[in-house]
C-alpha cells in the first residue's frame, strides 16, 4: 500500500490524462454491460410489476393466444368446482393526449373477488356498479392518470376507439397503490363488455383470471382446467407471462452481451497497452526499487495493485455510466418488447440489481487485472543492473512474438476445427471466440510486417517524417500493437455489424418488393403492427365494391404460442396471395404448396420461424387453437419478415374455422390498372372513415414504415459502432501520447538538426495515420471473418434469417477515410504537445 502511494501515485498523477483515457475502455465496457442489462431488467421488472399488480389475487390465467376466445369459455371455467372465482379480462393499450394508457376491461360484478379497487371518496356512482354498468362510457382512472390529465369525477376523456374518437366519463378515481400503480399508473378500467364493443373484439375475452377454491393446488387446478378446455388454451400463473417476455428479450440480451464483451476486450487491450508502456517507462524506477531490496513478487504485486485500483475506478465510473445509459435505453427496449406483447411495460424507475452491478464491477476489475498480468510479470523480471543503465529496451522480443504466433496458429486451427463442427452451437461460438483470439495474437506480428511494408511508402512521401513515423511503429510494438489490436477488434465489429445490417436490409427490400406489393393497406392503426383494434369481416365486402379496387386480401395477424414462442399467425387468402405475389419458397414446391395451404391442409412458415424454432419442411406443426390443437404440415418455407419471432401463414378459412374469428387486421388492396391511388384512398375514407376507426396507407408509406422499423432495430447497432470507434480512437491518442514521450529525445534531435515544428507534427500525424491504416487493414480482414460469425449468430439465435454473405464493401470504403481522419484528429493533441516541450530537456532526457 505504501508502495502504491509512494511510487504509483506520483506516476499516475504525472500521466493522469493517459490513465483516464485508459480507464475509458473499462468504463465503456462495464457501462455498456450495466446499461443494457439494467435497462433490460428494469423493463422486465416493470413488466412483472404491471402483471403482478393487475393480477391481484389471480392464481391462474386462461389464455388462447392473442385472438382470445369466446365468452362461453368463461362459463366453462366458472362451472368447475375447483374454481372459486373467475373473471374475464380484455387489455388494450390506447393512445391519449398524454401518451399510452393501458385499458383494463373487466366485469365489475365479479372482478372484485380477484382485484381490489380502492376508490377515492365515497361516490355512489362507483359504489353503485349499476350506474357504472348502465353507462357505457364509464371509465375508472387512477389518481396518477387523473392528475396528469387534470381529470376529476365526471370529467370527459377523449379516446380513440373502433368507432372513432369517443368521449368517456370518469366515474371513479382509484387511490394510488396496488392495481392503480400498474403500468406506471397510466391505467384505466372499463366495463369489459363496453371494451369489447369499443375495441371491436366481438364477443371475446383476452383471458380469464381465476382464483382456485380452497384446498386446490395450482397444479391440480391447472390440470383440471387444461382437461376441461382442451389444447387450444394455456393455463398458467400470471408470472409466466413475464417468462415468455424474458425469452423474447433473450436475443436482445445476447446482442448486448457480445457488444459489452467486445468493449471490455478492447478496453483490456488499452489497459494492457498502458501497463506495458508504464513498465517500459518505469524501468529505471523498478531497477532502483529492486536495488533497494524489493523482491520480484513485490514488484509484480505493485503493478497488479495498480491495475486493480484502475479497474475499480474504471468499473465504478462504468457502473455510473451504465446507469445513465440504461435510463436512455429502457424506453427503447420497452417499446420494442411491448410491440411483441401488446401490453407491456411502462418505463418507470430503473431496477438496480446489486448482483449485476457487483458482477460488472468484478468483471471490470478482473479484466484490468488480467490485462496487467503480462506487464506485471515483465516488470518483475526487470534486471536491476541493466535497468539502471542508460538506453532503453522495449522491443518485443522475437521469442515472445514467436510464441504468440504459435498460439495464434493453435487457435486458428482450433477455430477451423470448430467451424467444421459448427452444427453444434457451443462449437460455433467457440470458433468465434478462437478466431478472435487468434487474430489478437497475430496482431503484433502483422503490425510489424505491415509497418515494415509501410516504411518505404512513408519514406517516399516524406523522407524524414515518414521514415521516422514508420520506425516508431516498428520500434514500439508494445505501444503500437495493443492499439492496433483494439482498433482491429472494433473495426471488425463495425464491419460485421454493418455487413449484417446491409445484407439484411437487402433481403428486406427484396421481400418488400415481392411480398409487400399491394397498392393500399387499410389498417386500424397508424402502424401495421397495431393489433389493439380489429375490423369486422363485413367491412371487406364493402371495400371490394369501392370503384378502383381490383382485388382485396383480408389478413388476420395474431400472436399465438407455437413451440413455446409467441409467433405470428398470418391468416390470409392464400390463392390471391399466390396470384399477386407468388413468393418463391426457400424450401417446398411452389406449384403445390399454395394450393395445399389454401385447402387448409398445411401452413407456410417463415424462414426465421424455421431457424429459431427448428421446424422443417413436411413436419407437422402443432398450433393450439380454441377449438382444439391444429396439426398442419409445413408445406413450404418462405422468406417473410413480418415478425421477429417468426410467422406461420395459413388460409383464412382454416383460421376462421379454428378460432371462430373472422375479424381482420389489415385489408390489402390491389387497384385496377389505371386507378388513381389517391382517389381510391379518398373514396374509402369517405365511405368508412367517419364511422370506423380506419387508416389507409399507401404502399410507399408502408415501405417507409418498415424501413424505419429496421433502422430503429439497427439504431442500437450504430451506437455500438460509435462506442467501438471511440474506444479505438482513445487507444490511438494513448499510443501517440506514449510514443511522443518515448521519442522525446528523437524529436528533440530532429528539431536540433533543423526540423521545423510542422515537420515534427507531420511525423506524429503520419504515425497516427499509419496506426489507423494498419488497424483498418487488419480490422477489415478480421471483419470478413466476424461477419461470417455474425450472420451465424443472427441466424441461429437472434432473427433466424439466413442472410447471404456479402462483404460490406461500401461500409469498408466509408470506414477507411473515417478512421484515417479520426486517427489524424486523435494525433493533433499529441503532436502539439510534441512541439511544445523544451528542446534542452528533450535532448538531455535519459
Amino acid at each position, binding site marked *: 500500500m505504501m508502495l502504491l502511494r509512494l511510487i504509483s501515485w506520483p506516476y499516475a498523477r504525472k500521466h493522469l490524462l493517459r490513465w483516464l483515457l485508459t480507464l475509458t475502455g473499462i468504463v465503456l465496457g462495464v457501462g455498456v454491460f450495466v446499461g443494457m442489462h439494467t435497462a433490460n431488467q428494469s423493463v422486465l421488472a416493470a413488466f412483472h410489476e404491471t402483471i403482478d399488480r393487475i393480477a391481484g389475487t389471480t392464481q391462474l390465467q386462461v389464455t388462447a393466444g392473442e385472438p382470445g376466445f369466446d365468452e362461453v369459455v368463461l362459463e366453462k371455467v*366458472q362451472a368447475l368446482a375447483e374454481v*372459486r*372465482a373467475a373473471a374475464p379480462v380484455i387489455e388494450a393499450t390506447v393512445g391519449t393526449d398524454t401518451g399510452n394508457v393501458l385499458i383494463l376491461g373487466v366485469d365489475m360484478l*365479479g372482478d372484485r373477488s380477484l382485484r381490489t379497487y380502492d376508490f377515492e371518496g365515497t361516490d355512489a356512482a362507483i359504489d353503485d356498479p*349499476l*350506474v357504472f354498468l*348502465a353507462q357505457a362510457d364509464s371509465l375508472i382512472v387512477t389518481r396518477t392518470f387523473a392528475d396528469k390529465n387534470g381529470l376529476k369525477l365526471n370529467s370527459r376523456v377523449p379516446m380513440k376507439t373502433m368507432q372513432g374518437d369517443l368521449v368517456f366519463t370518469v366515474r371513479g378515481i382509484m387511490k394510488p397503490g396496488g392495481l392503480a400503480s400498474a403500468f406506471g399508473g397510466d391505467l384505466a378500467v372499463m366495463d369489459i363488455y363496453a371494451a369489447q364493443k369499443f375495441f371491436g373484439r366481438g364477443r371475446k375475452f383476452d383471458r380469464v383470471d381465476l382464483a382456485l377454491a380452497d384446498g386446490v393446488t395450482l397444479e391440480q387446478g391447472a390440470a383440471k382446467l387444461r382437461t376441461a378446455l382442451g389444447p387450444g388454451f394455456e393455463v398458467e400463473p400470471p408470472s409466466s407471462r413475464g417468462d415468455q417476455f424474458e425469452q423474447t428479450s433473450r436475443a436482445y440480451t445476447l446482442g448486448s452481451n457480445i457488444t459489452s464483451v467486445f468493449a471490455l476486450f478492447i478496453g483490456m487491450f488499452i489497459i494492457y497497452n498502458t501497463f506495458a508502456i508504464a513498465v517500459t517507462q518505469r524501468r529505471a524506477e523498478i531497477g532502483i526499487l529492486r536495488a533497494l531490496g524489493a523482491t520480484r513478487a513485490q514488484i509484480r504485486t505493485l503493478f497488479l495493485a495498480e491495475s486493480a485500483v484502475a479497474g475499480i475506478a474504471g468499473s465504478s465510473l462504468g457502473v455510473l455510466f451504465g446507469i445513465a445509459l440504461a435510463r436512455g435505453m429502457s424506453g427503447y427496449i420497452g417499446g420494442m418488447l411491448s410491440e411483441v406483447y401488446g401490453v407491456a411495460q411502462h418505463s418507470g424507475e430503473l431496477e438496480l440489481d446489486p448482483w449485476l452491478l457487483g458482477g460488472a464491477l468484478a468483471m471490470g476489475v478482473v479484466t484490468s487485472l488480467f490485462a496487467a498480468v503480462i506487464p506485471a510479470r515483465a516488470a518483475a523480471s526487470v534486471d536491476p543492473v541493466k535497468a539502471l543503465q542508460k538506453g532503453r529496451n522495449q522491443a518485443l522480443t522475437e521469442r515472445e512474438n514467436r510464441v504468440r504466433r504459435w498460439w495464434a496458429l493453435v487457435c486458428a486451427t482450433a477455430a477451423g476445427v470448430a467451424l467444421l463442427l459448427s452444427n453444434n452451437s457451443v462449437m460455433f461460438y467457440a470458433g468465434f471466440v478462437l478466431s478472435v483470439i487468434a487474430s489478437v495474437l497475430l496482431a503484433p506480428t502483422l503490425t510489424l510486417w505491415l509497418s515494415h511494408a509501410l516504411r518505404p511508402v512513408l519514406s517516399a512521401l516524406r523522407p524524414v517524417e515518414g521514415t521516422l513515423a514508420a520506425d516508431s511503429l516498428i520500434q514500439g510494438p508494445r505501444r503500437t500493437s495493443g492499439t492496433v489490436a483494439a482498433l482491429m477488434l472494433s473495426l471488425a465489429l463495425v464491419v460485421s455489424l454493418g455487413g449484417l445490417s446491409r445484407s439484411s436490409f437487402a433481403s428486406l427490400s427484396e421481400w418488400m418488393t415481392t411480398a409487400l406489393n399491394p397498392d393500399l393497406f387499410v389498417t386500424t392503426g397508424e402502424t401495421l403492427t397495431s393489433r389493439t383494434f380489429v375490423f369486422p369481416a363485413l367491412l371487406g365486402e364493402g371495400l371490394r365494391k369501392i370503384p378502383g379496387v381490383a382485388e382485396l386480401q383480408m389478413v388476420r395477424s395474431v400472436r399465438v404460442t407455437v413451440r413455446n414462442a409467441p409467433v405470428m399467425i398470418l391468416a390470409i387468402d392464400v390463392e390471391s396471395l399466390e396470384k399477386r405475389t407468388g413468393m418463391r419458397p426457400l424450401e417446398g414446391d411452389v406449384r403445390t404448396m399454395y394450393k395445399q395451404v389454401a385447402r387448409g391442409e398445411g401452413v407456410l412458415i417463415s424462414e426465421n420461424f424455421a431457424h429459431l424454432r427448428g421446424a422443417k419442411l413436411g413436419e407437422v406443426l402443432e398450433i393450439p387453437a380454441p377449438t382444439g390443437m391444429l396439426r398442419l404440415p409445413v408445406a413450404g418455407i418462405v422468406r417473410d419478415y413480418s415478425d421477429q419471432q417468426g410467422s406461420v401463414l395459413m388460409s383464412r378459412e382454416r383460421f376462421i374455422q379454428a378460432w371462430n374469428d373472422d375479424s381482420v387486421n389489415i385489408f390489402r388492396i390491389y387497384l385496377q390498372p389505371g386507378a388513381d391511388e389517391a382517389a381510391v384512398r379518398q373514396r374509402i375514407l369517405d365511405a368508412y372513415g367517419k364511422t370506423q376507426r380506419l387508416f389507409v396507407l399507401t404502399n410507399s408509406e408502408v415501405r417507409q414504415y418498415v424501413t424505419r422499423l429496421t433502422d430503429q432495430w439497427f439504431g442500437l447497432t450504430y451506437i455500438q459502432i460509435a462506442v467501438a470507434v471511440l474506444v479505438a480512437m482513445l487507444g490511438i491518442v494513448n499510443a501517440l501520447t506514449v510514443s511522443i514521450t518515448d521519442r522525446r529525445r528523437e524529436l528533440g534531435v530532429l528539431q536540433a538538426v533543423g526540423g521545423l515544428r510542422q515537420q515534427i507534427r507531420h511525423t506524429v500525424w503520419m504515425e497516427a495515420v499509419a496506426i489507423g491504416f494498419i488497424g483498418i487493414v487488419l480490422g477489415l480482414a478480421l471483419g470478413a471473418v466476424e461477419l461470417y460469425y455474425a450472420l451465424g449468430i443472427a441466424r441461429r439465435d437472434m432473427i433466424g434469417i439466413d442472410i447471404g454473405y456479402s462483404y460490406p464493401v461500401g461500409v469498408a470504403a466509408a470506414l477507411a477515410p473515417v478512421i484515417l481522419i479520426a486517427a489524424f484528429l486523435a494525433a493533433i493533441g499529441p503532436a502539439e504537445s510534441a512541439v511544445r516541450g523544451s528542446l534542452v530537456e528533450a535532448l538531455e532526457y535519459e
Partner: protein
Amino acid sequence: MSRKLIPWLLLAAPLVAQDARQIIEEVQRRQRSESQHYEGTLEVTGGGNRIATKRWTFDRIGSFGSSKSILRFTVPAEVKGVGLLIVNHPERASDQWMWRPAIGREQRIALQDRSTRFFGTDFSFEDLEERDVAQFDFKLLGDEGGVWKVESTPRKSSQYTRSFLWVKKENYTIVKVESYNKKGLLRAIDYRDFEQVKGIWTARTTEIQDVPRNSRTTLKYDKLEYNIPLKDADFTLDALRRGT
C-alpha cells in the same frame, strides 16, 4: 321430496306445524301465488353511502320452483332500462341475466358473483333468488313468545354458513332473518308493515342491513298485486332485450 322453496325476499303463509321443516313449508304454502307485481322503492343509507333512491318494477310468474322474474329499473335516469331476468330452477341455482341498454346486450350473472352486492344495495344477487327447502337443514331453536326461531343451514354452496329465521306463529310470516358467514353476522333482514293482499300476508317494507359495512337498504313495495294475468313469453331473454 318437497319441491317447495323459500323466497327470501317475498313471503308470508300460516299453518300449524311441529318441526322446523314443517313450519317453513307452511310459510311457503301460505305465500304461494301464481304471479306477482309491485313497484319497489329502494333507499340505501349509511355505510359511507350517499342516500340513493332507486325504483324498479317487478313481475313474477309461476311460483317457487319454476318461477321467473323480471326486474326493471325506472329511476334514476342513468340506470333506467337496466333489467334483470331471474329464472329459478327447483334443483339448482337460478340463472340470472342483466340487460344493459347502453351497450345493447345482456350479461350473465355468474354463480360465483351471486354473493356480490346487487347494484349498490345491501342485497346480494343470492338474496334475490328462491331456493328449495330441500337444499337446507332446519332446526327449531325455540319458541320466543309467539315467534319460532329456526336455524337453517345450506346443504349446497352459499355465501352463508347458516341463518336464523323468526317466524310469527300467528300468521306464519317470517319477520326477521339473520344470515351468518364464517366471520359472523353478515346480513339482517327485517320484514315490517304486514298487510293482507289478496289473502296473502305481505310485508310492505323490507329492511336489509349489511352488518360489516354498517349500511342498510329499505325496500318499500307499492302497487303490490298477486295472481294477475301475465304471459310466460314476457319472461324470456328476448323479452328482457325488448325491454317491455
